[in-house]
């Protein structure tokens, strides 16, 4: 599978190459003397992110999208796998080496209320990564803080205020300024706009896009909102119970999705109208995602898949190239008619 990707993306413009990443958590034992259980949070995930692009990860809660991001950021230990960032495998980095490498990859979290220390002023919060990484002189750091505030659209006076004096959207701007402070190459946005009101969400998305254009930033953008993902991402990976089930460039994904789970996600998010009704009737799955603790063999989606066959329950499908750049992990996708998404449906209000 990774060979397939090799052919289509020259390795030079790949910033991040994640290879067979596994993150398992212990989950007690089955019974008092039973075998130990494991949460298969991320179970063999591989993807590549090209420089200056946005890689979107979409999935429901428990799919492992945040765990993937945190493992890539080296915020939680990975069980196995390679994380090649800028040509070096940072999965092996420890201690001081890891600490200094962190200047190149930063993260913005979902909840800007809990991500900022309430006892410190905005200026100090933005300056903190510069202090910790020893970037520039004290005066240069102050200048950089002012410049960062301006870049994220906050006035210079904001530096003296405490987090509670800002609104949710402004706080997320602070988080972005802080992530930008050490001039990273990669920023992970983990549901960074999900907690914001729609009007504020648009402001933050536009800000992130502006910063990407100006600085050539690379994003990993995690969201459960397909509309936002389509708007913001160049490439999309769909995760389900610790596995990538489909991966494709955005335009391909939204015109010819191939995995039954992707069909379900799309039918749940389709704009209201006859197309949505038809999609929901035929493709929306029932129930909730099952538990990632000790998943059964076979396809993780088999339990909910409307098109399941015997083989799906026994044999785990691998992510294979169905088309240039389009990867799917499904035994049956070739045998089923995909949903007819028409020639570009219209959004509501148009």
């Amino acid at each position, binding site marked *: 599978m990774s060979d397939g990707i090799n052919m289509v993306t020259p390795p030079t413009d790949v910033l991040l190459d994640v290879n067979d990443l596994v993150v398992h958590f212990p989950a007690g034992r089955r019974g008092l003397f039973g075998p130990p259980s494991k949460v298969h949070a991320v179970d063999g995930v591989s993807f590549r992110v090209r420089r200056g692009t946005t890689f979107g990860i979409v999935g*429901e809660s428990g799919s492992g999208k945040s765990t993937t991001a945190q493992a890539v950021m080296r915020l939680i230990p990975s069980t196995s796998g390679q994380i090649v960032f800028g040509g070096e495998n940072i999965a092996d980095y420890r201690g001081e080496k890891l600490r200094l490498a962190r200047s190149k990859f930063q993260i913005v979290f979902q909840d800007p209320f809990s991500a900022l220390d309430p006892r410190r002023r905005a200026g100090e919060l933005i300056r903190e990564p510069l202090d910790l990484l020893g970037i520039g002189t004290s005066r240069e750091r102050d200048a950089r803080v002012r410049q960062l505030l301006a870049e994220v659209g906050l006035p210079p006076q904001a530096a003296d205020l405490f987090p509670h004096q800002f609104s949710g959207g402004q706080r997320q701007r602070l988080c972005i300024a802080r992530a930008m402070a050490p001039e990273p190459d990669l920023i992970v946005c983990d549901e960074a706009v999900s907690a914001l009101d729609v009007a504020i969400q648009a402001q933050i998305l536009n800000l992130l896009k502006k910063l990407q254009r100006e600085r050539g930033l690379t994003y990993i953008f995690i969201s459960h909102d397909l509309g936002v993902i389509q708007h913001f991402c160049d490439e999309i990976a769909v995760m389900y119970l610790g596995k990538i089930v489909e991966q494709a460039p955005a335009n391909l994904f939204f015109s010819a999705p191939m995995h039954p789970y992707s069909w379900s996600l799309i039918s749940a998010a389709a704009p209201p109208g006859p197309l949505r009704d038809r999609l929901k009737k035929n493709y929306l799955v029932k129930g909730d995602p099952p538990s990632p603790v000790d998943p059964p063999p076979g396809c993780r989606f088999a339990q909910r898949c409307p098109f399941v066959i015997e083989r799906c329950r026994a044999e785990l499908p691998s992510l294979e190239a169905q088309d240039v750049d389009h990867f799917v992990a499904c035994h049956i996708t070739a045998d089923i008619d995909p949903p007819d998404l028409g020639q570009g449906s219209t959004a509501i209000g148009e």
Partner: protein
Amino acid sequence: MSPVLSVQNLTVTMKGSKGPVPVLENLSFDVAQGKTMALVGESGCGKSMTALAIMQLLPEDFRVTSGRIMLDGQDVLTSSPKELRSLRGNKMSMIFQEPMTALNPLYTVGDQIGEVLRQHRGLGRRDAHQQAIQFLKAVQIPAAEKRVDAYPHQLSGGMRQRVMIAMALACKPKLLIADEPTTALDVTVQAQIFDLLSELQDETDTAIVLITHDLGAVAELADDVAVLYAGRCIEQGAAEEIIAHARHPYTRGLMSCVPHLRLGKTDSHFAALEEIPGMVPPLGARGPDCAFRARCAFAAEVCRTQPQPPLDRVDASAAVSCWRHQEIAP
């Protein structure tokens, strides 16, 4: 036929250090049997306060200063605490955004649904338990006989919200208030819950007040919509009409700032999202002039010098509160 719920000129204020601060101003709407009214707006616009005023569950320091709330012919605002207790659950009930915090973690879901039936219907313990199973089946929870003895933490988020819906509908209320019922749920589960709500509404003819920021949900579920901004209703009418021809700049902004999913072959070139700059003015910082003026691209002299205009009926099914809605019509 008289509406199930009639809210007339509802005004809610909050106690402030310099006198009362308006939270909701002059809100009026009716919801008929079997119909769904959506309240839309950003946080801080008064959607949830409207719901809490109807349920008479306003927090301390908040009070209704004028207006009337009629539920099935009964004046909610003049009802005694005892009357209110029988209204809630029996005639009106509410489901909240976060089913985990709304359910009691120490009781099984069967006990919690049963409690409603024992309190309001006078059922015995065993009958209530049997009925609870029926309700769990009605909200499409698989293996209801087993799940009735489960505690909330043993259920997924989607199932908890189904339990909440079962509790809310247990006494066949005339009015159901759903405050962002799917915001905390996964997308595929959201779609299921919306489907469930409209199916149950078809069966029971309940009137629904749906509080949401999701205009997609409005288009799918609502018959009527009221768009709130800073405690004032700025546009109101039939949902289809408002979504097809939004007139107020705020409503238009709300619709265009959400990236809508485009399916099929489209050129997926990035275009900046339309923004509504700034944010909702906080309580106490709202003058008599149009509250949206500071964020409005169409603001003119009249918007500053005149108080916010009353809702102006623009055709049979829509009303808008904007001085310039005719000039700026798209």
